[in-house]
C-alpha cells in the first residue's frame, strides 16, 4: 500500500487501519486546509490514532491529544502519517 522508506511506513490517514497510530508528517494541500486542520490539532509532528472510518468513503475518526475529530474522506487522504509499529 504505502511507500516504505528505510523502515518507515507512510500512509494517508484514510488508508490507516482502525486502532493504528502514528505521527503526522505532512499535509498535502493548500494553506486553507492546513490552517483548518491545525486549528483542530492536526499538524506535522502530532501523534494521532485512528479510531474508525465509515464505509463508502465516509469520514475518518481520529484521536489527537484528548480530542476526537471526524475528518471527511477526501481531507483524510491528504494527511500523511508515519505509522508506528504495533507493539
Amino acid at each position, binding site marked *: 500500500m504505502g511507500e516504505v522508506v528505510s523502515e518507515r511506513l507512510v500512509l494517508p490517514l484514510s488508508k490507516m487501519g482502525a486502532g493504528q497510530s502514528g505521527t503526522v508528517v505532512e499535509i498535502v494541500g493548500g494553506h*486553507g486546509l492546513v490552517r483548518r486542520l491545525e486549528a483542530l490539532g492536526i499538524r506535522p509532528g502530532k501523534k494521532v490514532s485512528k*479510531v*474508525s472510518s465509515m464505509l463508502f468513503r*465516509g469520514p475518518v475518526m481520529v484521536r489527537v491529544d484528548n480530542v*476526537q475529530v*471526524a475528518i471527511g474522506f477526501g481531507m483524510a487522504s491528504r494527511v500523511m502519517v508515519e505509522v508506528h509499529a504495533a507493539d
Partner: protein
Amino acid sequence: MQRTRCPNKPRRILLVGNPNVGKSALFSRLTGTYITTSNYPGTTVEFTRGLLRMGGEQVEVIDVPGIYALEPTSKAEEVAVQMLEQGDVVINVVDATNLERNLGLTLELLEKRKPLVVALNMWDDARHRGITIDVAMLEELLCVPVVPTVAVTGEGVRELVDRLGDARAPEVVFSSSEGRWAKVGEIVGQVQSLSHRHHTLGEAVGDISSHPVWGFMLAAVVLAAAFGGIRLVGEGIIKYISDPFFEMVWMPLLMKLSPLLGGAGMWHDIIVGRLINGGIDFMQSMGLLSTGLYIEFGVVIPYIVAFYFVLGLLEDIGYLPRLAVLMDTLLHRLGLHGYAIIPTILGLGCNVPAIMATRILESRRERFIAATLISIGVPCAALQAMVMGLVGREGIRYVALVYASLFVSWVVIGLILNRAVKGFSPELLVEIPPYRFPPWRVIGQKLWFRVFIFIKEALPIVLAAVLLVNLLYLFGVFDFIAGVAAPVVSGVLGLPRESVVALAVGFLRKDVAVGMLAPLTLTAKQLVVASTVLAMLFPCVATFVILLRELGLKDMLKATGVMLAAALVVGGLQNLLLPD
C-alpha cells in the same frame, strides 16, 4: 511580574474561545441571563449579549460564536472575527483539558493586541483526567491574567471578574503559524504535566457511536427512542394537563362568556367562535379564545416542550456530532456534509432557528441547499403536533405516510439540487466532544428558555391568523382565492375547494392551517395529501422572512419556486398512487 491597570473601565467584554469549551455557560454565570449552552459547535450562531455588574456599573458582555482560529471558514466564524473589533476586553475561554489546541487561538488573540484575560475553564474535568497545569507559570509566560474556572458550577467566576481590570495586551508577534505553534508547544511543555488515566465509560460508548456498523444500530435506537420519547411526553401533557384544563376549566368559562356576547354574530364568532351543535368545538369553532388558544396551548406547546426536552438531552450529551459523522455519506449525495444534520434536526422543532443555524456550513451553496431542504422536507413541531392529532385519528400508518413522503422528497430534491446548483461541497471536519451529562438545572433552564421564546413568537401570529381567517371569511376573500386555485387543488391534488383556504392560511401558521382541515371531513387519503402539501408548499411567514435574510431575494425566490413545484408534484403523485 509586572501588572499595569487598564486605563479605562471596560465598556464591552467579549467571550472568545474554541467551540464547546463552556463559553455560553460562563456567559450565563457572568450575566445571570440564561442562553443555551450546548455540547456542539454552532449553537451561538446569533451572538448574545448580557449585562455584568462590575463595581456598581453595568458592563456589556457578548458571547461570541466559537472559533478555532482567526481565519474564518464559515459565516458563523466570520461574524465572530468581525465582532472582535468591537470589544475592549476579551475573556479568552480555554478548555483546560485540551490546553495545546486552545492556546493556538490564545496566541492569535494576543497578536491582535486586545486586552486579554484567560479563563482556564473545565478545571475540574482536567483534574479528573489527571492533567495538572501550573497557573502561575502560564500567567507569567502569557503575560496576561489566567483564572481557573468551572463555568457549570460557577467556581472561579468571581475571581475572573475581579481580575478583568488586570487585562493586558502584551506585545506579541509571530512570523508564521509554525512559529506560533512552536511557542504553544514550548508553553505547554513548561506548564502542563499528565498522569496516566484509563478510558472512561463515555469514551467507550463514543467509540461504538462512530463504528461503521454498530454506530448505525445505535443511531436507530437513539432516534427511535427520541421519537417515542417525544410522543410519550407530548401525549402525556395533552392527556393529563392541557386537555383536562381546556375541557374542565376553560370550556365552562367560555360557555358563560358566549351568552354575554349574544350567543352569535360577528364579534361573538371572532372572540368565542361559532357554536357547533350548541357547544364549542376547540378544533373547529375558530374563535380567538377557543381554537386560537387551544391550537397553541392544547396541541402545539405539549409537543414543543417534548421536542425541546429530547433535543436538549441529545445536544448536551453530545450525540449530535456523532450523528453528523454517520449521516455524512448520505448528505454528501445531497450536496451537503454531515454537519448539516444539526440545522436539519433543529428544523423538526422550528424552521426559523434551523435556517439561522445553516450559517455553521461553510459555503453559500451548502446554505442554499440546506435551507431549501429544511423548508420543504422538515416539518416543524407545530405542524407535526397537528398532523399527529388530526391524521393520527385515522391510524398511525397515515401519519407514517406523511413522514415517508417528506423524507423521500427531502432526499430526491437534495439529489437534484446537488446536480443543479453550481459549485462543490466542502468536507466534514468536526470535533467530536466527549459525552457529558449536563446538570438537570441546565436542561430545565434551556427548555424553559426555548419554550418561552416559542410562545412569545408564535402566540401573536396564531391569534392573528385566527382573526384573519374570520375576517377573510366575512369579506368573501376566501371564496375568491378558492375560485382561482380550485382547478389545481381539486384537479391535481384531489382536495375539495374549501381546503384551498387552509392551504392559504398555511402561509401564516401551519398549525392553524391543519386545524382548518378538521371541519372539512376529508378522507384519510385527502388528509395525507393535504398535510404533505401543507408541509412542503410554503414555509410560514416567519420562515420566509428568515429565508430572505439569510439567502437574499434571488435565492429565496429560487427556493420558493422549488417548493411550489415539489409540493404539486408530490401531492399529485400521492393523489394518483394512494388507494382511496
